């Protein structure tokens, strides 16, 4: 391990955590935005058009690799921080009032992140692995009204199972708590703390943490309940 600089040191781990975190946040905006096309309620035509673009555009496909690298770095860095931080206090307090000085979700980023990762494995299996790497997945779903590959129909099929809908909603809950600390924390880690902007960052962070997971959670729920067809 380096003892100084931008790799291996405690502060370097924070910078990488913050940078990959902000990168993953920007991904969430794109992902939520495109998926929200289902709410046009046009049998998935608009959504399928965008899904096709995302699945075939060269720049997007390249960014997909960068996205996976960013995610892996975020996860590995997070696990290293978790391990070191636990090791730093070999004997715990017999009696501690943690809630008197901090929020439970700020102290539980490792657990929340692990829950999100477990959700992601399920989520990637449902859509990414099946559509990209298992031939014939899309065949039963045919084409939509505009003659495009019908990813919307696959989505409707997956979310017809109430158990899966519950798993997705729980995943969004974990994401909400993770973002509630993570968004603001990323700015602090990069040294971006200033009286003039702290209020705006805190507001934006809380708003993002509520709106994006809520939007994501609304999709499986809306499809299961038949609000979106």
């Amino acid at each position, binding site marked *: 391990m380096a003892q100084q600089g931008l790799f291996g040191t405690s502060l370097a781990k924070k910078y990488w955590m913050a940078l990959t975190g902000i990168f993953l946040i920007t991904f969430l905006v794109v992902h939520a935005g495109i998926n929200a096309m289902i709410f046009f309620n046009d049998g998935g035509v608009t959504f399928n058009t965008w899904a096709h673009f995302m699945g075939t555009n060269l720049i997007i496909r390249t960014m997909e690799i960068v996205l996976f690298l960013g995610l892996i770095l975020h996860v590995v860095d997070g696990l290293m921080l978790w391990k*070191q931080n636990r090791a730093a206090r070999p004997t715990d*307090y017999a009696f501690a009032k943690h809630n008197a000085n901090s929020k439970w979700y700020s102290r539980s980023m490792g657990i929340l992140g692990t829950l999100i990762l477990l959700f992601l494995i399920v989520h990637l299996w449902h859509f990414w692995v099946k559509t990209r790497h298992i031939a014939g997945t899309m065949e039963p779903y045919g084409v939509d009204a505009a003659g495009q590959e019908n990813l919307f129909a696959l989505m409707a099929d997956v979310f017809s199972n109430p158990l899966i809908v519950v798993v997705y909603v729980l995943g969004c809950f974990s994401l909400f708590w993770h973002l509630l600390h993570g968004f603001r924390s990323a700015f602090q880690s990069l040294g971006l703390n200033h009286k003039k902007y702290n209020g705006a960052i805190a507001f934006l962070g809380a708003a993002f943490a509520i709106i994006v997971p809520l939007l994501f959670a609304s999709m499986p729920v809306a499809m299961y309940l038949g609000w979106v067809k």
Partner: protein
Amino acid sequence: MGNMKLTLKIWRQAGPSAKGAMVDYPVTDISEDMSFLEMLDVLNDKLVREGQEPVAFDHDCREGICGACSLFIDGRPHGPSRHITTCQLHMRKFKDGDVIHVEPWRSGSFPIIKDLVVDRGAFDRIQAAGGFVSVNTNGNLVDANAMPIPKPESDKAFDAAACIGCGACVAACPNSSAMLFVAAKVSQYALLPQGRPEAKERALNMVEQMDKEGFGNCSNIGACEIECPKDISLENIARLNREYLGASVAKE
């Protein structure tokens, strides 16, 4: 004499490698005007009279400026009140019949010497790694006040310099991180012109020593700021993050 009766649950550990345990001690005749340390003095007086080993704890100035006293009291560093050290905590904050846990700072980087006394030498070694300005003291000293410094800047530097190095930040942090301490020590110099020439080396060297001591990593939980007896702000940690980032990129 007061009339409070309390049950203390105190960590007793005979030596650095001995096995420790929480031990119950009933205390009586406690006045609400006593400080927490004076209450422990009453307990120790009783223990000595009974031929038992008194409870070892750190204390020195007993007026909140030296940073010697510590103690994780009732689940929090320096007890339930904010912006005070244990010596400034008074028994009026507790009620008759209370059960109070008293533990040492818990951190792998602060090994226990005996009972409630921990070795905070790690802080000294971090300070020695860069917490100073190199000044020629060969008789050609420049008067410190000869250099005009804007009041807001000097106030910020002084707020950071208020850190007494007690270690409550480490004790409070779920990660056992020393970032608030290191950030205060880096900031008090980084904010003043006298500290700028060595700012890069200071940030790099002090963080290097912090990592070597085995403290955890800051994850911006914020418990340190709440428990700091001197109200050192998280702004200082952001400043250290900036200083270190700049120094890592620009150091030749």
